[in-house]
């Protein structure tokens, strides 16, 4: 998936992936896509809940070699 911005949050622990994701999403326009890479095991639940509650759309996610990648469309 083509992302407009990529956030590398690998190695960061709670709450930093969410804090950084929020910062990154502020820097893109509505409709653009942010790719977030993280190694935090709670990230899947966290980012799903966060996107829902803050009005963004989690388009897709995948896990590969312990790295979780998420694509979030700014609402």
């Amino acid at each position: 998936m083509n992302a407009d911005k990529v956030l590398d949050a690998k190695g960061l622990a709670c709450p930093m992936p969410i804090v950084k994701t929020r910062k990154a999403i502020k820097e893109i326009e509505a409709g653009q896509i942010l790719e977030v890479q993280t190694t935090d095991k709670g990230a899947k639940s966290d980012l799903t809940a966060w996107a829902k509650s803050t009005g963004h759309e989690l388009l897709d996610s995948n896990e590969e070699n312990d790295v979780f990648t998420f694509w979030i469309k700014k609402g």
Partner: protein
Amino acid sequence: MSERKTTNIILFSGDYDKAMAAYIIANGAAAYDHDVTIFHTFWGLNALRKEEMVPVKKGFMEKMFGGMMPRGADKLGLSNMNFMGMGPKMIKGVMKKHNAMPLPDLIDMAREQEINLVACTMTMDLLGLHKDELLEEIEYAGVAAYLADAENGNVNLFI
């Protein structure tokens, strides 16, 4: 009135682990675009103390309290397994390994995210803490200010 949701946390405890939990939730709530306030009272005030000794005029009891209480976030003990101060050293090592943010960094992050840090003035008097001994640019308030925030709040926690 803003349409934003609010999170209000009372930090009563002066334990490193409990303060960490409070600040992690606060930073997370700020990332949820909540207006966040941490109201520090009693032992929680010690998280806002400056690390250095600040010369202020104090009575005997105030001096005793001031000397016995931890000076600043990094000096707080653990609520469990403190082991006379060895516990915090051990957990800080483990935190480093897992890339968890130490409490002083969480407080810096909270300020960066414009979380309101409030010191309860009544308990400051009880513990003999003066404004000069606490971090700069925090707010000072009492129970009414907390209730005004909390009555319309979405998340309210007492830690």
